[in-house]
């Protein structure tokens, strides 16, 4: 099963209320995904350098010591803040350099996302617990996508929790299952894409990262995904400035989109959209199979 939800703001009107509007959408999808939940929020962009979301199993992990270690090792400056088991690090350095340093020297620190705007927060447990744990309702930003998981092909662990990010500011959530993920993971690894888990959804995220690296636009990358990815899926994708929804040709995994002058919202089921402002007069429809829906800042 699984539930997916996304909210993309078309203007500034609700930016300060993004988390508050999104929290009930996540909780409404508890029946579809009670095992783990997570979200990727885009906002608070850094102008230079890279923003990482990092996670450590130990709530009392010494993030300050890690920040100092990075500053010394890479001769750079680190700004950071902690949110429960997660810390957001803003580092003035090349992303690969920081990621390699962390993997080699601090393998117990999990890198959840990297980019200029994205932050990924996820945990095992009921969506309501995760929403409260990270104080989602206080968060601000331009767009956010979330996932509530009912585990099928892998265990109920942090590693299997969505969303997945495999490239800068890119994030994907998925309802369904992919049948050709194993071979595709091998091919993508040969092309330099790094994977942290054996999860099928991470392969879809990795595939999009690879296509975008090859110069595809988000739309082109999704067109290629429709040709190459085999299985059942509804995807919702976030990039630094964009938001996309796509369903496989059979479209048996549900999706509904609502659009007003102020926002685009998607959810697995309409009941996750009922708390949004102006939903009574929103344009509400089900995305067509094999059809790519993209909203991007500056292009529409």
């Amino acid at each position: 099963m699984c539930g997916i939800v996304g909210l993309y703001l078309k203007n500034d009107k609700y930016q300060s209320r993004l988390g508050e509007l999104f929290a009930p959408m996540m909780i409404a999808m508890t029946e579809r995904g009670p095992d783990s939940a997570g979200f990727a929020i885009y906002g608070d962009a850094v102008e230079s350098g890279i923003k990482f979301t990092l996670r450590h199993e130990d709530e009392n992990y010494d993030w300050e010591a890690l920040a100092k270690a990075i500053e010394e090792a890479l001769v750079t400056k680190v700004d950071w803040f902690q949110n429960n088991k997660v810390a957001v690090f803003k580092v003035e350095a090349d992303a690969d350099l920081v990621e390699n340093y962390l993997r080699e020297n601090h393998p117990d620190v999990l890198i959840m996302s990297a980019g200029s705007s994205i932050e990924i927060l996820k945990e095992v447990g009921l969506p309501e617990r995760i929403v409260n744990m990270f104080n989602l309702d206080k968060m601000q930003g331009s767009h956010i996508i979330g996932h509530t998981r009912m585990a099928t092909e892998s265990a109920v662990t942090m590693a299997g929790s969505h969303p997945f990010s495999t490239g800068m500011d890119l994030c994907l959530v998925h309802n369904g299952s992919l049948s050709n993920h194993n071979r595709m993971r091998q091919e993508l690894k040969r092309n330099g894409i790094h994977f942290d888990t054996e999860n099928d959804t991470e392969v879809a995220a990795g595939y999009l990262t690879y296509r975008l690296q090859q110069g595809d636009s988000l739309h082109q990358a999704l067109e290629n995904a429709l040709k190459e990815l085999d299985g059942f899926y509804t995807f919702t994708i976030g990039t630094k400035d964009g938001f996309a929804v796509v369903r496989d040709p059979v479209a048996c995994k549900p999706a509904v989109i609502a659009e007003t002058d102020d926002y685009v919202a998607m959810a697995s089921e309409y009941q996750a959209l009922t708390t949004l402002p102006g939903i009574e007069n929103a344009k509400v429809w089900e995305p067509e199979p094999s059809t790519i829906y993209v909203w991007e800042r500056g292009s529409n």
Partner: protein
Amino acid sequence: MKTIDLAKETVRDLNQALHDQASACTETEWEVLNPKGQHNLAVGVDQKLKIDIKGHAGYYCGGMNKEADIVIHGSAGQGVAENMMSGSVRVKGNASSSAGATSIGGLLVIEGDAGSRCGISMKGSDIVVTGSVGHMSCFMGQAGTLVVCGDAGDALGDSLYEVHIYVKGQVKSLGADCVEKEMRPQHIEELIELFERAGIKEDPHAFKRYGSARQLYNFKVDNASAY
């Protein structure tokens, strides 16, 4: 009229109250407020009731309906009126996939569009869609009538048995063993009668008829030597 507000009561309360009418009918007119896309509204009703759902419904609304006339004043999620036995379900908005799936009798009217697999495996109901239907509609349809006033998506009537399909607009593609057939006077009469029951105004002469070529659905004796 009895009003049930789902902001205050649960879907279980609603359905139990409706089911209680089967043994002793005390109230024939029902109104449901604040459905907000919840699933399983007014399923398994077994009494001649009139039920108005004031808003959008989730999955399986009006499923297994017997005798009741249910109106959804909004859109409906997957499987609206699935396995309906008799009575009617009317959707004022759009319906998601698998509308009227396996329905055995009664009338389903969708005033907007229906998603994919509309009327999948229908077994005797009548389904009238004022808008368009998605792909794989009427897949393995066995009996009844599917009328589409707009367009039909890919693979209409795939592996069809004996449903009468009528489409006014474009058919993107026909499924295996589904073919266009001649409109004879009895088909015009069938449509006139159906439009009257559905309360919609359409010219039956504007429709094309599709049905089974009957090449797939039973064993061909020519294949006997293969065993």
